[in-house]
């Protein structure tokens, strides 16, 4: 959020009306109107044309498969989708996979997890959780997890190690496909300035 605000400020948009954590969610910014929303809702807003442009993580786009146009990689908000397993339990997991033919994987990102394991031809049962997947192996809910990590410290604190990286993610400038074509006059300069802002990073 703060990175997004400084990017918008850097290209000369008036973001003074936006207070992170504030109650006003639709904010007048002069030539543009800002809408503040949860990341996964931003993809929906833009996909359905409620907003013309959005700033949202690639992680959200991968999970939601929203039909939007990804215009600029803004570079901030870096994180990775990883498969993680209890440290030292790799051999046990693989034995179990051979024995039982399937592994249980807890995740907040079932679409990303399912696509990944299908592509690797590994049979898994996905267990969807709403938060804190990293405790799942500790409490015996699942063998592995698929989670989004920035530094990996949460994984380490829970005795987990990265088995494999699935994808890396950064914030993206996205547009509604129809708006991008029809409102090019208005959208174009914003896209160009954000691209120029992101380029040297």
């Amino acid at each position, binding site marked *: 959020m703060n990175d997004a605000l400084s990017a918008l400020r850097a290209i000369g948009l008036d973001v003074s009306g936006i207070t992170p954590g504030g109650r006003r969610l639709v904010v007048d910014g002069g030539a543009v109107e800002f809408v503040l929303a949860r990341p996964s809702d931003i993809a929906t807003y833009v996909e359905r044309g409620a907003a013309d442009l959005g700033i949202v993580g690639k992680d959200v786009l991968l999970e939601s*498969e929203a039909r939007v146009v*990804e*215009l600029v990689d803004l570079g901030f908000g870096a994180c990775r989708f990883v498969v993680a397993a209890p440290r030292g339990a790799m051999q046990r997991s693989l034995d179990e996979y051979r024995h039982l033919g399937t592994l249980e994987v807890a995740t907040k990102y079932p679409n990303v997890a399912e696509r990944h394991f299908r592509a690797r031809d590994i049979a898994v049962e996905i267990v969807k959780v709403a938060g804190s997947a990293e405790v799942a192996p500790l409490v015996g809910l699942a063998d592995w997890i698929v989670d989004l990590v920035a530094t990996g410290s949460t994984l380490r604190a829970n005795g987990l190690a990265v088995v494999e990286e699935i994808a890396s993610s950064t914030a993206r*400038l996205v547009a509604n*496909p*129809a708006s991008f*074509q*029809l409102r090019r006059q208005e959208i174009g300069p914003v*896209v160009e300035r954000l691209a120029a802002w992101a380029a040297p990073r």
Partner: protein
Amino acid sequence: MEGPHTYMNQQNPVGPPRGFRDILPTEARELGVIEQTLAEVFADSGFTPLHPPLLEFGAVDSAKPRRIQFLDSDGNLVALRPDLTTSVARLVAGRYRDMNGVLRLSYIAPVFREEPPMSGVAREVLQAGVELIGGDGALADAEILALLAESLERCGLSVRESTVQVGSIRLASGLFGILADAARGEILRALREGDIAGALSRAREAGMPADHLERAARALAGGDGVEAEADLCRVIDLARERWPGKDKRWGVPNLGLVPALPYYTGVVFEAIHADVGVVASGGRYDLLIGAFGEPRPAIGFAIDVLQLHRALFAGAWQPRSQRPLLLLRASPDERATMRCAATIRGGGMAVALGDVVERAGRSVIHAEVVDERFVKLDDGPVAEAATLGRDFVP
């Protein structure tokens, strides 16, 4: 006796499955007007309607199927057709195997697509489209592009400059021509998913030089100041000759237009409306028929009729008004009532005996039977049944 509550349970739900909806008479009447107009426009360019079947054979995908498919009682995996172009391609490769000439085929029919729950997207889409099979070159491309513009115009949608975007898969792929085939394939896949940023960063990774990269980025972003490829402009200029001399510029070159459907090979286009989004899309698909038999050049488009209807409505559109309906109250002489109604219909006026609650926006006139030859209009004089049709011209 079953009470009304039984309609609320799972066995007897009152509404259709998610993503499907009832189209009630008012909307159905309006859609009928649009469909009739489109059928006329298609016929005026020599396209002849056909009806592919609702079911085609399904396919086992590694990805999540976008088809609604199931096993029939023979044990075959069958799918509700997800689009008509593929059905027409299959049909042409089989039934027109030995006829090498040009085919002009059109359809107005629903297609079905699986969509994730709670995404607010319809699973049934009504499409009206044409396929020109055997037509090749800029002239065929321009004819189909002009026909799309004309179809929208004749339905009442004003086609402004940015409404029709024209791209080219061949030219978009050509922007990355110096890269190896494998990298170019990945880049095209990213573009089909709308991931322009990802496509460009993949090109950078694959070693594309900075000046090429810069040119590709500008071409994909489109907009003013981008010099469009001559081939593309030629098609657009030719298509605009449909309304010669008119200042109206309605096609915009845009290489960033790479539709999600994988079968396009050449020119592609999309009609976009500010309020409802994509109204129609199409393009050249020279290899699709080859998947079912001998390859043949082909180009076509499909209009999403429900989206077009919404776009027309956003512009305060009114369907052509219909003849009013005469609601005729019977006289005690039932034989005279029947004869009177027949006489009125014979004179060109629509008649219903009694009343009707769902009028679907149609205007009605009330009258009572006097005898075989005369009716008493509720807000007027006694009138002759045979000449009523002349008095109420719409």
